């Protein structure tokens, strides 16, 4: 049996059929990143209780690929600040954020983490963006689980627009 070379008119892509697609690196990497978020819950108040409802089976955050809750910042790429942050806690939050590996994203869940809520006083941080950069703010006091899921989806859309070549903001 003799070897028959492929005719020069047939390109390799055509010969491979449907088993080959072309795309961009960003698209592939972002697809992986946004569908496998590992959240770290920084729950300090009732929003943290609401986050438990988001993780559990009724609302089921695993439909969005973010069900693997990590309690070490070194294993997480999404930190969810759910609750009131005081100035006494702020260095702790900052340090935990700095311990997370790049790429990392921050969700500020609820009125207190976003703006201080109704704690307009000497001890409460009026919004955690004084301390760390925030990607997504979720409104509510506390936010409904649907709002949490909306925040996750918004973050996924944001990740899809990112590029590996851009250096994300790193806290000085």
């Amino acid at each position, binding site marked *: 049996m003799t070897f028959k070379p492929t005719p020069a008119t047939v390109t390799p892509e055509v010969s491979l059929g449907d088993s080959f697609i072309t795309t961009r690196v960003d698209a592939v990497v972002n697809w992986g990143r946004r569908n496998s978020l590992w959240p770290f819950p920084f729950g300090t108040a009732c929003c943290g209780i609401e986050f438990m409802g988001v993780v559990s089976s009724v609302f089921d955050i695993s439909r969005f690929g973010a069900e693997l809750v990590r309690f070490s910042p070194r294993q997480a790429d999404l930190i969810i600040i759910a609750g009131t942050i005081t*100035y006494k806690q702020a260095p702790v939050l900052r340090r935990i954020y700095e*311990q997370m590996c790049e790429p990392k994203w921050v969700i500020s869940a609820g009125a207190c983490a976003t703006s201080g809520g109704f704690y307009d006083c000497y001890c409460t941080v009026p919004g955690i963006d004084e301390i760390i950069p925030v990607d997504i703010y979720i409104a509510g006091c506390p936010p409904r689980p649907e709002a949490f899921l909306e925040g996750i989806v918004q973050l996924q859309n944001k990740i899809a627009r990112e590029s590996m070549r851009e250096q994300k903001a790193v806290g000085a």
Partner: protein
Amino acid sequence: MSSIAGAGISHETDVRSWKREPIKPGKSDDQLEAALTERFGLTRDAKDRWNLTLVLAAGKAKAQLHEVVQFLRDSPDLRFDMLLDLASIDYLSYPNHRGPRFAIVYLFKSLVFRHRLKLKVEIDEDDAEVPSIHDLYRIADWTEREVFDQMGIVFSGHPNLKRILNHHEFVGHPLRKDYPCQKRQKLSINDPMVDQLEARLKHYGYQVVESGEVHLGAPIAAKHQSVAEQGPVDDQKKANAHGAVGAGGV
């Protein structure tokens, strides 16, 4: 860090046998007033409601407060063996107030007689200092720290009078009426509270050999704190002093 509980700590020596006494009829407010006002020169607050409020005038607290509270606790007719709370008042913007700016209110209750008493101690602004009663009621340790933190009243004789709610870089006392309520103060670095940790370890019979800060997230080898075993100092602590504890681990 290795758990302290794993070191064979026995609390038996600290716990006294306690049996509930039957509740006895207590004294009425008038009887309490009669028993206390003349003895210590107290006056009854004209505006008191629900419970008797006795006032210790400003200037008398330094000499008399500890004596009064000890009498309330130890007198067999009174036996106020529970300090329910300890609160401070700033009368700066209080309408129609005459008298010293500050006051501390001690809330006492007797578990046997079920009678209650409020003791209000007036405090001048220039001399905001009262004796501590932490040796009579252990709960006064933390409540006095809270009053010191929020209101700036000094408790002389307190073993560890430092801030308890606000952070250690905070300047001023936020519950004073002349503190601007929304003035925020940032904290740059946390108080590692090594002194508290060491005190607790010493309480359990350990000796702190090398002291240092416990840094979360920092390399452990660089900032290592080792707490080694102390030889048994007496028979009671002999059971407590087992192996060494490294407190630097995270």
